[in-house]
């Protein structure tokens, strides 16, 4: 339908921006503050707790944001056409990535704490487990990932921003001027951007699995220096992508309430539902592929990790909780065609999935580090988590306030190839 947008609609489209209640912004800000306080306080109070929950949230929120961008990249690579707005919202999640990179830096001290004991336990791999080494390779990976993602999004926005500048569609700002250095006219820019995006998307899609694999190996698997599972990396990046999709779904529904169904159609919601169902199955396949092999092999060096989490208190209920919330319920709900078309159902399920995956990170990390009884959960955990939520919220709000949510340039200035038409999207990249 974007094809037959008329020129005068652009203005409307551009102006059309979600009305974000001031309250929301303030709430996010307060949450951030709360988080920072909780974190600093707990560093003195009980550092291991603060660091492990910090790690959990770092993994969760970075993964969420990155997953969104990866979704956009796939959408671009396969030349999908079904939901430009959905894609734009996914791109928006990149706003958190620079923040998350900054948030990784303090984690150095956490890593030092986590791996202080490894050298003794596992001398053969001591050098590999050296906190500095882990931190450096982590930082490099994340840095690369962030740069690629941000530039991918940048080239998607640049033509529109520039166009807006050209037409004086919004008041000028340093950000926009900086973004449109050396503007060459909208058509050229669009063509040019398309090419750049192609490369960057490919870059993102190649880098993401590798970098997130090693994030999983270094920041989760290595916390238990005796356990290993070759699928763990793959499992983790599928899991983060799944969370990214859920995030996109949630945001899409919220925006839809804001804009109405003309911008985000029911068909698009349904497609999102299908994708969620598909990756729900992919995710559970990853969990299962690891579980059945370890269950059958019955080798202590593998089983101890599973047994501790699946049959030992207090972790067992949490692990099963992950399965129920992020796998079982969404599956049953999305079996129905209609459920995929009801916004609030998608919203709820999306949130449920996200909660489940947050819990999953918790269950993966804490039992390896937490040697005292019970599952640590209190003001520290809540505080820091809310802090991250606030951070993520703010960065996304920042995106909404500055950039067009409904892309309108590309359909007009990009000649669509015969084949391009034929390719209905194929987001899984299968």
């Amino acid at each position, binding site marked *: 339908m974007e094809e037959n947008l008329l020129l005068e609609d652009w203005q409307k489209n551009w102006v059309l921006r979600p009305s974000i209640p001031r309250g929301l912004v303030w709430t996010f800000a307060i949450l951030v503050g709360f988080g920072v306080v909780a974190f600093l306080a707990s560093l003195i109070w009980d550092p291991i707790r603060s660091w492990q929950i910090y790690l959990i949230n770092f993994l969760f929120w970075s993964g969420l944001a990155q997953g969104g961008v990866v979704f956009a990249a796939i959408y671009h690579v396969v030349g999908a056409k079904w939901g430009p707005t959905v894609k734009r919202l996914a791109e928006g999640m990149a706003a958190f990535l620079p923040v998350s990179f900054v948030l990784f830096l303090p984690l150095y001290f956490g890593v030092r704490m986590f791996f202080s004991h490894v050298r003794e336990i596992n001398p053969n791999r001591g050098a590999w487990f050296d906190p500095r080494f882990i931190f450096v390779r982590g930082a490099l990976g994340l840095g690369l990932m962030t740069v690629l993602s941000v530039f991918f999004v940048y080239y998607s926005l640049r033509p529109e921003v520039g166009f807006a500048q050209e037409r004086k569609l919004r008041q000028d700002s340093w950000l926009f001027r900086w973004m449109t250095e050396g503007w060459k006219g909208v058509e050229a820019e669009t063509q040019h951007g398309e090419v750049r995006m192609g490369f960057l998307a490919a870059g993102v899609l190649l880098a993401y699995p590798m970098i997130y694999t090693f994030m999983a190996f270094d920041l989760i698997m290595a916390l238990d220096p005796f356990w290993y599972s070759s699928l763990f990396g793959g499992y983790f990046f599928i899991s983060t992508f799944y969370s990214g999709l859920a995030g996109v779904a949630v945001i899409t529904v919220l925006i839809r309430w804001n804009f109405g169904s003309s911008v985000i159609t029911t068909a698009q919601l349904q497609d999102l539902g299908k994708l969620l169902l598909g990756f729900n199955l992919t995710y559970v396949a990853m969990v299962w592929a690891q*579980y*059945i092999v370890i*269950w*059958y092999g*019955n080798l202590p060096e593998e089983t101890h990790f599973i047994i501790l989490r699946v049959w030992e208190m207090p972790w067992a209920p949490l692990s099963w909780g992950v399965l129920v919330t992020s796998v079982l319920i969404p599956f049953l709900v999305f079996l129905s065609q209609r459920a995929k078309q009801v916004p609030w159902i998608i919203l709820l399920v999306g949130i449920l999935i996200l909660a489940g995956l947050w819990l999953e990170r918790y269950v993966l990390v804490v039992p390896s580090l937490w040697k005292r009884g019970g599952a640590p959960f209190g003001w520290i955990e809540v505080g820091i988590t809310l802090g991250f939520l606030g951070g993520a919220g703010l960065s996304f709000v920042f995106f909404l306030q500055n950039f067009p949510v409904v892309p309108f340039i590309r359909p007009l200035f990009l000649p669509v190839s015969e084949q391009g038409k034929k390719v209905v999207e194929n987001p899984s990249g299968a």
Partner: protein
Amino acid sequence: MAESNSGLVGSFPHLDSLLHAIENLKKTGYRELQALSPIPHHAIDAALEKPTSPVRVFTLIGCLLGSITGFVLTIATSLHYPLITGGKPIVSIPPFLIIVFELTILFGGLLTLGGMLWNARLPRVHIVPAYNPRFSEDRFGLWVPCDEKEFDEVTRLLESAGAEQVTPATR
């Protein structure tokens, strides 16, 4: 179904003229029209206002049957002749789940096919006279059940819509 046995078949070279014909006939009050086409097209279904196919129900039932069979088969046989292998429990659910999964798919698939044959009334030995081989090639057919006195009107409606030929046929 209480359909009258006589009727007319219009043969259309174009899809849209078929659709017009359906519209007109419906307006005039003819029901139980039947389109015959070389390809499926959602526009035809839309025009004829047919309900969505109930095959999905068959699939669902098949899957449920399959998984139940899977569980019963694996657990019951293992308990019936309990042999310990590799220290694994007699009822080892994880391996059994794989059998369950496969049977779910198998039964689901079989009943889906069954559902299609049942609903589409296939296989059938006698092809209705209304059928014209070109309906599988490049012509769209429309069968209108009506008795002789309605023939003229129907013929007019069909031809006005663009039928290249109208032939009487019985079911």
